[in-house]
Every structure is written in structure tokens, then in C-alpha cells.
């Protein structure tokens, strides 16, 4: 199992892998916002957490369609389906490696973008922590979409369309926890704990659903 993790990490880091592209997309999307809304620092710092969350959400969906597609195209997926070890575990490992290679860099890059958005230190820290906690849920939900779309020839866009509505709860609680850390009356913990709960819930539901979809996508 650890070999699968290492193999997927190696594949995404080596030439042709998409690890860099997600971060780049994230930075570009967030950097474009000020050109639309104007360079008013107060306004930017107010909308900053939301923009960073939305940017991270879109960037996280970017490489998702490749999660199972490449393995299906070269036949590796067939062998993974045949094994004795539960497919759920294989899917979980693949989600984990996707998160490590493609989504964790977004979390690491988010403080930098926080500076561009003129957010204060507390807000930057809050966004980073909520992203760290909430983003695995994006990978798990995305795995279901990727598994459903695996047999389609051009599933890339479809995956985003399928997955985006399902990720709305993550966005709601991620952003509200980030704002709660900055704005005084709202408490930080309740939305944050709900976010943790969502991630844990989807870490079970996501791989189960994806495994089920992969089993039924056989042709």
C-alpha cells in the first residue's frame, strides 16, 4: 500500500505530472481578482479569505479527472480491481497521494496569497488551518466524481461540474470559520469542528462511493 502511495507521488512529481499546475492555477486565479475589483486594500482584505477558499477549491478540482483516468488508460486499474485487498483502501491511498501532491501545495501557498490580499496575520493563519483541515474532503468527494467519469472520453470538465455542488458545505464552513477567526462576535470553533466532521465523514463515504462506481464502470 505504501508502494502505491509512493508510486502515485512519483508520477505526479515527475515530468508531465500535474503537481505544479494546480498551485500555478491557484495563484493566477487569486491574483486576477484585484484587477476585477480594484486595488482597494480594505476591500481586498475583507473578501480575501473567501477568494482564497474559492481559488483553492477550483485548483483542487483541476487535476482530479486524472485520478483514475491514467490508471484506466494503461490497464493498471484492471489489476487493482482484481486484488484481494479492499478496493476502498486502494482508493483511499490514491486520494491521499492526490492530496499530498496536488492539494497540500495549495495550502502551503495560501499564506503568500493572503499577503497579496492584504489580510492580517490572524486571518492568514485561519485560512491556512481551515484549508488544511477542509481540503482532504475535497479530494475524497472529488474521487467519487473522478470514478463516475472514469469511462468517459473527456471527463475533465464533467468531473468539476459533478463535484462542485457537493463541495459547497466544505466551502461554507471553511469560509465561515476563517471569518469567525477575524470578526469578533462569531465563534471560531463551531464551524471549524463541523468542517472537521465533514472531512471525516467524507473520508469514509468518498472512497466507498468511488470504489462502488469503479466496480460498476467495468467494461
Amino acid at each position: 500500500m505504501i508502494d502505491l502511495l509512493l508510486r502515485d507521488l512519483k508520477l505526479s512529481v515527475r515530468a508531465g505530472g500535474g503537481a505544479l499546475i494546480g498551485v500555478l492555477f491557484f495563484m493566477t486565479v487569486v491574483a486576477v481578482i484585484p484587477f476585477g475589483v480594484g486595488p482597494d486594500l480594505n476591500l481586498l482584505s475583507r473578501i480575501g479569505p473567501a477568494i482564497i477558499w474559492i481559488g483553492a477549491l477550483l485548483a483542487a478540482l483541476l487535476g482530479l479527472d486524472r485520478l483514475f483516468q491514467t490508471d484506466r488508460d494503461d490497464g493498471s486499474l484492471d489489476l487493482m480491481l482484481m486484488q484481494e485487498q479492499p478496493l476502498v483502501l486502494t482508493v483511499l491511498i490514491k486520494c491521499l497521494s492526490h492530496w499530498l501532491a496536488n492539494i497540500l501545495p495549495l495550502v502551503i501557498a495560501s499564506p503568500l496569497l493572503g499577503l497579496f490580499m492584504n489580510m492580517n496575520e490572524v486571518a492568514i493563519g485561519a485560512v491556512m488551518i481551515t484549508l488544511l483541515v477542509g481540503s482532504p474532503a475535497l479530494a475524497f468527494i472529488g474521487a467519487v466524481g473522478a470514478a463516475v467519469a472514469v469511462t468517459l472520453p473527456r471527463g475533465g470538465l464533467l468531473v468539476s461540474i459533478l463535484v462542485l455542488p457537493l463541495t459547497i458545505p466544505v466551502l461554507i464552513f471553511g469560509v465561515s470559520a476563517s471569518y469567525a477567526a477575524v470578526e469578533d462576535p462569531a465563534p471560531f470553533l463551531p464551524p471549524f469542528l463541523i468542517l472537521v466532521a465533514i472531512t471525516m465523514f467524507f473520508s469514509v463515504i468518498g472512497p466507498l462511493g468511488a470504489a462502488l462506481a469503479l466496480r460498476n464502470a467495468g467494461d
Partner: protein
Amino acid sequence: MRLLAENLSAHRGEDLIFSNLSFSLAEGEALLLTGRNGSGKSTLLRVAAGLLRPASGSLRLWYDETRRAYNLAEAAHYLGHRNAMKMELTVRENLAFWQSFLGNTEGGRGVSVLEAAAAVELEQVLHLPFGYLSAGQQRRMAFAKLLVAYRPVWIVDEPTAALDISAEALLARLMREHQSQGGMILAATHQPLELLNVKRLEMKGFVYTNAEGHDL
């Protein structure tokens, strides 16, 4: 150890590809599927590998000693049309990954990566990325994957496609060695393939003929 297939039927979409197909294989035997394109050879092999659900019937691997039946897919290697190797990784990384991912089923052990590569006579290219190899070399390396982890049953679909005559003979020899150690082989092929104890099954699309061993 016996491989039992009873009353297998399979659909592809709405089409019935074959129905009520039964056969059995004892240790060291091979089932050779022949027939024109689209006659359902690949479908039968994918059903055998558990990748397609049969419309009816079952496929089991029966162990006489323990009197237990196993799911065939977990005790079988499947080599389809695609090689299941990553172009970006080196050959060694590919084989080592499958070795540890597949593991051995009870009753045998796979050989080391180096030995497997030597068996297909390609040990010099272990350090190269898989994508650098020619189509024939890639096929041979994909076959080496069957050696690194032990499975009693090999399900191979056109294993010698894209190979020259000497490489074809090489793979046939490796398959015979597997049989002589008690392994079973399910193969679909256009080219003549020299195996031991061969049972033939000619697939005819919607109509089917039974194998000689349809005694079940």
C-alpha cells in the same frame, strides 16, 4: 486445485455474447480460446478476471486439499491488451511496484525483479523509463509482471501481439514452465501458441461450441 466454470453467460450492452458455457481445468492444463474478432474471447477473459459481471453462472477455483472454493480473480494474473505499466517510471520501478502491490497467493512465490527481467531476456533495460522501450519490449516486460508475483492461474489476452517469432517462442516457453509447476492458463490468441495439455474452445459469437471438457 481445479478451475470450474459453470453455465457462464455474458452480455455486452444488450447483446448476448455467450451463454451456458461450462468448462473445467485441472492443474497444468490450458484453455485456448480461438475465434474471429468480436466472438467474445476478450469478454470471456474479462469475466474470468472478475472485471465483468457474468449474466449467469460462476467461476471458482476449487482447492481439493482444503475443500474450499476461492474467487478466481484473486488467484489470477490478468494480462489484457494494455500493459498496465507507467511510461514515466523506469522498468524496475514498475515491476517492483507490482511485485509488492500484488503480493503472492498461497502456494508459491514470485521471482525477483531482476530474475523476471532476465526471464524475458531484457535485464539490460531495467534502468530505462518504460516509455523508452519498443512496443515488443513493452509487451515482454508486461509479461515479466506475471513472474514477479505468484498466481496459480494466468489469464492472458493476445499475449504475443506485437511480438516477433523468437519473443513469441520465449513467452510460450515461460507459459509452459508455469504449467509444468501446476499452473493453469486461460489464453485467447490468433497465433498458434504451443502450450501443454491444451483444451480448445472455439468462440463463435452468439452461438457457442463447448470445450472437450464440458463434463460438468
